[in-house]
């Protein structure tokens, strides 16, 4: 049981780190603002989720793990709002995305 907890902590921690690294690489590689928002969303959802999951497995069930569970709950509410606000203001102030509208 102890080995299982140890190795699953390592696995989920590095899975989350991989998603955060690929999100920040996408922040460099993708061509325009509207595409980069997707990379930031990848950091906010999958990276945070897997890292907090590994920390919860590491700490065991206690009040601390409930407190850790509040972090993805807050991100679940705040991340789409800030992403939508950034894309809306960028669209309103005249930056057009490279993609054309499909009928």
């Amino acid at each position, binding site marked *: 049981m102890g080995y299982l907890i140890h190795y699953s902590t390592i696995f989920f921690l590095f899975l989350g780190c991989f998603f955060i690294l690929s999100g920040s690489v996408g922040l460099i590689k993708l061509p325009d603002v509207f595409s980069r928002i997707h990379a930031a969303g990848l950091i906010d959802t999958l990276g945070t989720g897997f890292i907090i999951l590994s920390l919860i497995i590491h700490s065991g069930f206690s009040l601390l793990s409930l407190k850790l569970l509040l972090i993805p709950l807050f991100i679940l509410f705040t991340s789409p709002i800030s*992403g939508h606000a950034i894309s809306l203001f960028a669209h309103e102030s005249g930056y057009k995305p490279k993609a054309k509208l499909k009928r």
Partner: protein
Amino acid sequence: MPKNNPDSPKTISIIVYFILLFALWFVLSGYLKTLLLFFGLISVIFVLWMSVRSKSLNYDAFPLKLLIKLPIYWIWLIKEIIKSGLTTTKIIWKGNYTPQLLKVKASQKNDTGKANYANAITLTPGTVTIEINKDTFLVHALSKELAEDLQSGEMDKLIKGLHK
């Protein structure tokens, strides 16, 4: 300031708010002494009194029948987030992005349903809601596959069932 239906249950939602706020206070503090619990009770009641007095409380927020449907919806949403996140990661490392703009029709009746649908679209990585008109969303998708996944309308139907 939220618009409230006159027939939405006032007492029940205030009780639900009280339980949620007190649970949040307890998780953040973690003390079990009687005096400190009493102080927490006083602060929760003060916050509720303030927000009822300033009319900034939304009584529509907790329909009780949602309590059964919500966990199923959350599990489905987590599955969808992981699926489209893997697609986005593949696109980032391979570099074959074909960004697309598309218009999506929202068939939800009330404002809460529309806001929930737009939030769910933005929360899944790979699709972002740019603009909200009356009942069409302007959505920016990272690839053709993700756009077709959104246009199949599965998410729309599920959230419409959530807000009956």
